[in-house]
């Protein structure tokens, strides 16, 4: 069963990631939350998730936690993505396709400036 490519390799990757993460820990925790109720999934939330993960991987961004939530009652605004930076208030974005997700990752997560046009007033 070739389930895990190589545990040795994973151990090595983990050690490196750990060192990098510790160096970064002071910068504050960043959370990205993708809404994945039936409505979100049908509207393309998995592509939004893929886009977020892809951005993290290609830009080598450490210390970001990616989670998901269910339907938050704004089905018509799906896919919905929420961002929490450190102690700041949660910011909720609507109609976040893969492309907008990339913009949010760049402007909000990396540069600290929320993308006003896509923020939902909640």
């Amino acid at each position, binding site marked *: *069963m*070739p*389930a*895990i*490519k190589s*545990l040795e*390799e*994973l*151990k090595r*990757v*983990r050690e*490196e*990631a*750990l060192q*990098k*993460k510790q160096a970064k820990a002071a910068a504050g925790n960043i959370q990205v939350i*993708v809404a*994945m*109720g*039936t*409505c979100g*999934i*049908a509207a393309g939330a*998995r592509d939004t*998730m*893929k886009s977020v*993960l892809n951005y*993290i*991987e290609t*830009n*080598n*961004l*450490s*210390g*970001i*936690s*990616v*989670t*998901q939530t*269910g*339907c*938050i*009652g704004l*089905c018509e605004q799906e896919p919905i993505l929420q961002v929490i930076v450190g102690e700041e208030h949660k910011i909720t974005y609507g109609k976040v396709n893969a492309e907008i997700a990339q913009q949010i990752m760049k402007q909000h997560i990396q540069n600290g400036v929320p993308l006003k046009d896509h923020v939902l007033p909640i």
Partner: protein
Amino acid sequence: MREIALHLLDIAENSVAAQSRNICMAVYENLQSDLLLVSVADDGRGMSEKTAQQVLDPFYTTRTTRKVGLGIPLLKLAAEMSEGELNLITEQGKGTKVTASFRHSHIDRMPLGDLSMTFLTLLISYPHIHWVFIYQITDRLGQIHEFNFDDCELKETLDNMSMTEPSILKFVRSMLEEGIKPLALQAAN
């Protein structure tokens, strides 16, 4: 929904919401018997007989944020459109298993879609759940090709390290893709 893999993601969300600790997602493609079978089995809180009847109705949901629950009815419809059916086995306090079957070659059968992304999304979003993914293909000659993934070893080695650290993410993503892609090609032949 445009893919069976998206339905699976959606059904697994129900399992998570039912406070499951172990969730097994399985996909069986049998080209000999022209059958596609998918299932999500959990050890969550399960349902009473009455509730199990009700979840097939789109106007039933346990959520409070919206009044219709479409997950299971949508999958049922997708299965029935391609000469298949949806099966629900559940016991209160024990867990639930949802199975959907499809005639593999049926013109209206939805494509399986991106299984590796569905698996990755679940693994990353719910690290506290023990995930088992099974993808098995029986080709036209009756030979079995399979990708079995149990996240035990992975999590033990990671030792609470987040799967969204870029290098770990890359490792897990490519592991799933490399395991699934060759099988998906088998099934397409």
